[in-house]
């Protein structure tokens, strides 16, 4: 490879990264302006924060699926860990830190730490497996997290934090407050998640992922993805790199979970089930594996789409399914792709 091609390659890579940042920032400014000038409908305004959270989820899962090349079917589990630990932190800090944005930031950091820890624990067994077996084990862990959170109780009183499993045996002193209530989840959450906070989290997530991808470790990830045996033979510590990507991805998912949860007054463990994991996987696959911008756009489109289909009333989810199938066919079938690109007047002439 000549020096020149290397630079070109780097430029193309860099262009993609700058384009991603530019799109995110411009989209943020447009939405923010439209939102503050009341140009945006309530329906759209209400979706800004969850869309940000889903975008971060897409970026985070892309690190595992797109960059590392391993299929995860339990990503919502990390979101769940983040949501519960983050919201609990925010509630505990309610009296200590009155300024909401700081509380939100701390909650998201705590959520990321908890989720990263969960990612580490799960990573130990999971990363020994390969392919579909790895996928099913992540699915299993997602279900286990859901099942545990559905049986978990936590409260606070003057003696500190009390926890129990299966049934509420926390025996809080008078004046104490039960925060996590098993299947009833958390109620009465203060809605402190904001769109700017979501946008900042997304930018941070992108910075972390891009830096990681374009570092020594990132190249190791892709080497592992493209040929595990070759990567191993040149002395790459596969487990270490896999673990690194997995933990980082879990941490981002945790922060996104906290952001998401604090946009609603209530949260339950069942929200983060297999279907949510699949939804996030759909963002990644539709946006193109390894393509951060694609994942982000897919997250926005697929979150807004069902809302825009409301006028079809009972046929709404049926149409959603059809659109999903057609989109997958259109982006993955060679003939259809060729047909579409012929329709595109701006397509570049192939040499």
């Amino acid at each position, binding site marked *: 490879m000549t020096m020149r091609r290397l630079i070109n390659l780097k430029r193309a890579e860099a262009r993609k990264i700058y384009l991603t940042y530019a799109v995110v920032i411009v989209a943020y400014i447009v939405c923010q302006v439209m939102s503050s000038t009341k140009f945006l409908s309530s329906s759209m305004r209400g979706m800004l924060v969850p869309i940000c959270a889903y975008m971060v989820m897409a970026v985070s899962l892309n690190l595992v*699926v797109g960059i590392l090349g391993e*299929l995860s079917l339990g990503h919502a589990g990390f979101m769940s860990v983040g949501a519960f630990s983050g919201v609990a932190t925010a509630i505990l800090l309610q009296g200590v830190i009155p300024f909401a944005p700081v509380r939100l930031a701390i909650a998201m950091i705590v959520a990321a730490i908890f989720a990263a820890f969960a990612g580490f624990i799960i990573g130990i*067994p999971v990363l*020994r*497996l*390969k392919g*579909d*077996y790895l996928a*099913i*084990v992540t*699915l*299993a*862990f997602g*279900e*286990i997290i*859901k*099942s*545990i959170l*559905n*049986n978990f109780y936590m409260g606070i009183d003057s003696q500190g934090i009390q926890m129990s499993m*299966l049934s509420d045996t926390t025996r809080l002193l008078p004046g104490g407050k039960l925060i996590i209530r098993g299947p009833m989840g958390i109620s009465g959450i203060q809605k402190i998640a904001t769109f700017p906070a979501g946008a900042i989290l997304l930018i941070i997530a992108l910075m972390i992922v891009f830096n990681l991808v374009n570092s020594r470790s990132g190249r190791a990830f892709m080497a592992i993805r493209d040929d*595990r*045996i*070759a990567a191993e*033979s040149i002395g790459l510590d596969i487990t270490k790199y896999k673990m690194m990507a997995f933990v980082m991805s879990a941490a981002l998912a945790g922060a996104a979970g906290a952001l998401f949860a604090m946009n609603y007054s209530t949260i339950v463990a069942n929200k983060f089930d*297999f279907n949510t994991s*699949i939804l996030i*996987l*759909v963002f990644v*696959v*539709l946006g193109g*594996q390894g393509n951060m911008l694609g994942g982000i756009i897919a997250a926005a489109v697929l979150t807004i789409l069902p809302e825009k289909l409301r006028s079809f009333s*009972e*046929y709404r*989810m*049926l149409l*959603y*399914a*059809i659109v*999903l*199938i057609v989109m*997958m*066919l259109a*982006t*993955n*079938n*060679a*003939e*259809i792709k060729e047909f579409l690109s012929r329709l595109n007047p701006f397509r570049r002439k192939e040499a």
Partner: protein
Amino acid sequence: MTFLNFFISGISLGSIYAIIALGYTMVYGIAKMLNFAHGDVIMVGAYVCFYAVARYELNPFLGVVIAMIVCTILGMIVERLAYKPLRQAPSLAVLITAIGMSYFLQNTALLLWSSNPKVFPSIVGRGAFKLFDGELSISHITALTIIACLVIMAVLTLFISKTKMGKAMRACSEDKGAAQLMGINVNATISMTFAIGSGLAAVAGALLCSAYPTLMPTTGSLPGIKAFTAAVFGGIGSIPGAFLGGLMLGVIEIFAKAYISSQLSDAVVFGVLIVVLLVKPAGLLGKMTQEKV
């Protein structure tokens, strides 16, 4: 005796998982794709059977045959429209399309048959074989399911090992490119696999709803995921593995409920699955493929 009764409950639940898992594992083994819409084809089969038996008062076995025909045709249409165009695409794209298909089938069922649960008429009645003065009972439907599982397993194994089509299937599963070079019509073979898998789904639907008789548009989705787990447990792609995995999953689930905690049974089931996969990374009866450089 309680222990034995729990064991039998586990076997009955497991036999249902097993029969669903057979369909999953067969399609996976040959087409190398996780067909997440399989659970919903089961639901469609159960509805067809329900209408044949409850509304048109046909013989239950005739109902199952009609359901099999409908599901086979449905499976072939789904395959032709949604999966065939993606033969060259990455496997994840096919997975997502299958999920889209699952949503599609569920929502079509919701529009066609409404969300009201229907009570499925059992195809063999609700009786049971009593052993040891009634201390132990095995319901007819459990016996039928296990027999059906064994018959299907035997027929599938024979079909795959003895017939020409079966050989073609095995060839496709080993190496699609080489199979094509040997003059095998890979596309037709994979379509055939889907047709058989969907026909099996109809039988599974009728048996699932006979054993646990409420039928809703979402009936297939959770058992579908459990059966998928069972297929992996036994070693995905392996037909006896699906049978064994299904039975074991059922027994573990019931024992976890009975002897550990009814609240945490799902966590225990999936925990056992993880431990098994760590000890045997390709499932109980799966082949460990050695990667070549």
